């Protein structure tokens, strides 16, 4: 079972490495959106410091949504998904492995470059850390919730639009709390409460979302 899960993760990473343009699109989108804000708003350090967490979080949310459609689509089209369903490993665990790989490809790069991008907003070093940490806890939650939406809309026409409509309301609490962490830290409150909440959300989503997505996949494939 462990071998199967490791195999799924390695396979998805290998596929991403051989088709790196998909990964770069997401990262580039994130970089462009975040970089355009300071240019558009103008050089006002105080204002930039205020909007920074929100801008980074919204950009990360949109970037992760951009990649969402691809979580299951290719496997569905070429029949691999059926083999996963008929495999020896419970589908929920396979989905969890796929979502983890998807986060490594489309979420982790955003977390890693976010401190660099946040420099454009004149954030203090301490805030950079809190912001990156909030993204590190929050983007996997986005991937997990998004996987349910991607599974539900699999194979539908106009799946992209429907997917965003489905998952956006569920993304909002993550966004509010995630961006709130850095804001609270900036105002001297520390932001621990928000980070703990994000951690709780991650545990909750990690435990339940893969199973919900697995059920949705079985319905979509029928």
């Amino acid at each position, binding site marked *: *079972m462990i*071998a*199967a899960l490791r*195999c*799924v993760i390695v*396979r998805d990473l*290998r*596929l991403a490495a*051989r*088709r790196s343009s998909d990964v770069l699109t997401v990262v580039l989108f994130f970089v462009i959106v975040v970089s355009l804000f300071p240019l558009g708003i103008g050089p006002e350090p105080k204002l930039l410091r205020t909007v920074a967490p929100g801008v980074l979080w919204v950009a990360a949310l949109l970037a992760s949504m951009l990649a969402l459609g691809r979580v299951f689509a*290719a496997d569905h*089209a*070429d*029949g*691999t998904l*059926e*083999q*996963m*369903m*008929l*495999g*020896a*490993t*419970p589908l929920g665990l*396979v989905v969890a492995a796929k979502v983890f790989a998807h986060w490594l490809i489309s979420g982790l790069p955003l977390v890693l470059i976010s401190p660099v991008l946040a420099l454009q907003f004149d954030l203090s070093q301490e805030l950079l850390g809190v912001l990156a940490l909030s993204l590190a806890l929050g983007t996997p939650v986005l991937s997990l919730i998004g996987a349910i939406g991607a599974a539900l809309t699999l194979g539908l026409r106009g799946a992209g639009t429907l997917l965003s409509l489905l998952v956006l309301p569920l993304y909002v609490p993550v966004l509010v709390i995630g961006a709130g962490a850095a804001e609270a830290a900036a105002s001297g409150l520390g932001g621990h409460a928000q980070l703990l909440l994000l951690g709780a959300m991650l545990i909750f989503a990690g435990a339940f979302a893969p199973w919900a997505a697995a059920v949705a996949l079985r319905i979509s*494939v*029928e």
Partner: protein
Amino acid sequence: MEKALEAVDLHCARGERTLFDGLSFTLKGGELLRIGGPNGSGKTSLLRIACGLLEPNRGEVRWGGENVRKLKEEYWVRLLYIGHANALKDDLTASENLAVACALAGVVADERRISGALDNLGLAGRENLPARVLSQGQRRRVALARLALGAGAPLWVLDEPFTALDAAAIECVQGLISGHVSRGGGVLYTTHYEASIGAAVSRRIDLAGS
């Protein structure tokens, strides 16, 4: 095959159309069951129902007396399904594709066995080519190479295994199937090709279509 596959009073409708109704059969170890019928008569749907991928509108499929949709993984480890789609990734090589398929199915296969299985299907020397550059028939061979490693699964469900294959490959696959049946496995398959597979018990069910 220690347990029998039973289909009991299956009814399947896609949209408004009834594909089949009141269909029952039993498949025991050492038996070969071919599903025939024109295009669109529900052969693939029947195989997908037999695998537990699709829920029939009425009736159930049982493995050793228990509904396969309840048994889940317990049934699926005993099953080897090769569908219409080859389940290959264009960007992975033939041997990587086969290794992934084996890992998902819970079959332990090292590199030597994997390249042996590919050799078996006449893909020697092409193990390290990406699936993208393989021809349609070669891609089918990669998918079918699982049969050469599939002795652990007693029940094989094959959807049009001979499509796009040349005469040599068809003979090889027929050999694998008859070998499996003679070892006491059961095979449920569809094909439009008049295959000659050696088996002690070989039956055929024709779906009428409408």
